[in-house]
């Protein structure tokens, strides 16, 4: 029929596509340009390697199939998958159909999008029926995903989410145009099918139904094209930008780019890659226990993107990393928070010039080359029980150790870094490194998870093996240097945030120890899914009552099966729970359990 294969209604679509690609190119180039030197070096080093292949594979898995969302929530996963995978297949299969039809791969670029309109139904081409069926099938898949999305907007509980994310005006335009695209396409194709009998199982049936009304065809195709155009134009300013950004994020991450202390182009990529799926809302203890529901990663990221971020939102976060664990895109929102917390440093300041590592350290030992350095950390100094037990354990194992911060301890610097005082944190780190290096030791043992995390991930020039005391005690038991008596006591073990998420996952060592000492009870939330005790130093703005609410939530999990002891391996968690438990099980550090037994 229409052999020119052109109609003015393709113009809005074409215009939208051009604008979209210009926008994407500008954004991508700006982000890459803003990468730091080290980040660019990483990209250069790994761009031609197996990592690139791995990234492509991950893109297929995550951007199209959304495997991670599936794992968390099958219905939500199907919604994302059917929209993303279904739509991209529609484009790909459509392109093949159009190319087969016209006999050339380089046909009009819009032919694939508006194929049914331009198709001459009398023209026979290979696999015609198959193509028609596939296209209808894919359209049905996308429409089913869309239906779920619409339902989710109104009944978010269905997806297991308590609260759908809020939207800005441009989000709304993009959302409405997105919702219109596929129903319009369905109607447009059906109308054509009604006249020309070129539809598949879906479009033909609907077309036959509509045929008696003799509706005009062109206006619907115009509407379809305009919906596409609107979506493409507004998309870069909305959450839908995540569709393309996630691809870039996966590549950069596979090439070894990581968040740094200051804002870089990579931060912007992470921010733009959030799909606002809302998974982070329901895992956040602030939401579930303290009813604070405007500060979770999704809102934090949205507020930054909309340029309305407030100090409270930046600071109201425990940095417990539960949301980072759950995020299907793998956005390190807590690192970004730390970046946004950065406080100005002033020049010529001699931070902590009063500290003298030489005057710090053990008062009781002149030993300069022990095997083990024990660093209790500030918090352990508030829980003498832990320190005493550790000393006894060292003694029982006959360990050659020096208690390196027995007298006048220096903070590890992580609390400062979490609050954005970078220069100050670096000063403390340097002092501690100086202290450790003044000994000639093999292992650095700490009983504070905050210090452990800091030594492991933030200290770059530490030439010593770092162990958390759970790891160390477990090693002693395995080496047969420490005897543990099995008792009939039951334990509920609380995994401290700092050693149970991201790269620090100390799960098995404490469990081995406790199984040797008694019976370990299974919990509803444990390991990477453990709840925060609420006292995290990452959050400075919570009120005492809010902290207590969060603590009680964690304690409910721990006390459910009436254990004899709540066991933890963090002095801060221990103190927190102790304050909360008037009667009921006793709270003990894992080191105290060993000594007790």
């Amino acid at each position: 029929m229409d052999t020119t294969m052109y109609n003015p209604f393709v113009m809005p679509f074409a215009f939208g596509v051009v604008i979209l690609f210009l926008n994407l190119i500008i954004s991508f180039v700006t982000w890459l340009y803003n990468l730091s030197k080290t980040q660019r070096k990483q990209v250069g080093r790994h761009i031609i390697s197996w990592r690139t292949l791995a990234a492509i594979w991950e893109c297929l898995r995550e951007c199209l199939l959304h495997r991670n969302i599936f794992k968390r929530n099958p219905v939500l996963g199907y919604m994302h998958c059917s929209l993303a995978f279904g739509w991209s297949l529609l484009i790909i299969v459509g392109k093949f159909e159009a190319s087969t039809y016209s006999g050339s791969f380089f046909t009009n670029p819009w032919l694939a999008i508006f194929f049914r309109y331009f198709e001459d139904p009398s023209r026979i081409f290979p696999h015609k029926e198959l193509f028609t069926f596939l296209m209808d099938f894919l359209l049905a898949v996308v429409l089913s995903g869309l239906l779920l999305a619409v339902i989710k907007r109104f009944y978010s509980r269905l997806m297991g989410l308590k609260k759908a994310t809020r939207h800005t005006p441009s989000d709304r335009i993009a959302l409405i145009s997105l919702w219109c695209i596929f129903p319009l396409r369905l109607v447009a194709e059906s109308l054509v099918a009604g006249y020309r009998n070129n539809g598949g199982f879906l479009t033909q049936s609907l077309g036959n139904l509509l045929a008696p009304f003799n509706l005009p065809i062109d206006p619907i195709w115009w509407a379809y094209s305009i919906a596409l155009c609107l979506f493409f134009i507004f998309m870069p300013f909305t959450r839908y930008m995540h569709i393309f950004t996630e691809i870039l994020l996966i590549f950069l991450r596979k090439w070894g780019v990581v968040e740094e202390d200051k804002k870089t182009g990579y931060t912007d990529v992470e921010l733009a890659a959030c799909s606002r799926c809302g998974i982070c809302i329901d895992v956040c203890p602030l939401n579930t226990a303290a009813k604070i529901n405007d500060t979770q990663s999704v809102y934090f990221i949205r507020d930054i993107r909309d340029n309305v971020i407030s100090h409270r939102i930046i600071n109201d976060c425990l940095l417990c990393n539960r949301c980072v664990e759950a995020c299907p895109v793998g956005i390190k929102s807590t690192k970004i928070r730390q970046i946004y917390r950065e406080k100005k440093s002033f020049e010529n300041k001699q931070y902590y010039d009063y500290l003298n590592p030489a005057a710090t350290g053990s008062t009781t030992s002149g030993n300069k080359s022990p095997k083990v350095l024990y660093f209790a950390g500030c918090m352990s100094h508030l829980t003498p029980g832990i320190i005493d037990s550790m000393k006894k354990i060292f003694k029982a194992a006959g360990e050659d150790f020096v208690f390196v911060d027995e007298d006048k301890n220096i903070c590890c610097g992580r609390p400062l870094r979490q609050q954005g005082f970078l220069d100050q944190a670096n000063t403390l780190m340097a002092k501690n490194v100086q202290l450790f290096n003044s000994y000639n030791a093999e292992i650095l043992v700490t009983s504070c998870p905050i210090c452990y995390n800091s030594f492991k991930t933030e200290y770059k020039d530490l030439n010593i093996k770092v162990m958390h005391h759970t790891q160390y005690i477990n090693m002693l038991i395995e080496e047969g240097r420490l005897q543990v008596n099995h008792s009939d006591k039951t334990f509920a073990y609380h995994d401290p945030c700092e050693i149970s998420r991201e790269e620090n996952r100390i799960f098995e060592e404490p469990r081995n120890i406790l199984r040797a000492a008694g019976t370990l009870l299974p919990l509803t939330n444990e390991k990477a899914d453990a709840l925060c005790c609420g006292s995290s130093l990452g959050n400075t703005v919570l009120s005492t009552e809010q902290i207590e609410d969060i603590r009680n939530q964690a304690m409910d999990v721990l006390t459910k099966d009436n254990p004899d002891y709540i066991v933890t391996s963090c002095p801060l968690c221990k103190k927190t729970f102790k304050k909360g438990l008037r009667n009921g099980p006793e709270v003990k550090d894992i080191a105290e359990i060993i000594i007790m037994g």
Partner: protein
Amino acid sequence: MIKFGYAPVVSRTLDLDSSDFSLRDELIREVPSYKKCIGCGGCTSTCSAHQHTEFSILRCNMLFRRGKYDVLEKELDKCMLCGKCLLVCPRNVNTRDMIIKMRLLVQHKNKKQ
């Protein structure tokens, strides 16, 4: 002259007229628990920084209350934000937040002048 180990004291009057109280209300708004401090000194006795040098939140509170912002700025930089004070405070004063906010307010103020 025989020294008896004591001497006439130089007068140490507090000149409230030269003090500047402008930041107090702001701090109270930001950290309401600041008002709850009873000056027991628990925080200072456990303080990590205090083991190494003369530093006391108690004194910082006093300086802040009296509007001595110039001395205070140097003083506040000594805190390591370790959080020990937070755990011992019997009045649940949010000491860390108080110190951070004091630090920012005072730095801002001193820079403007």
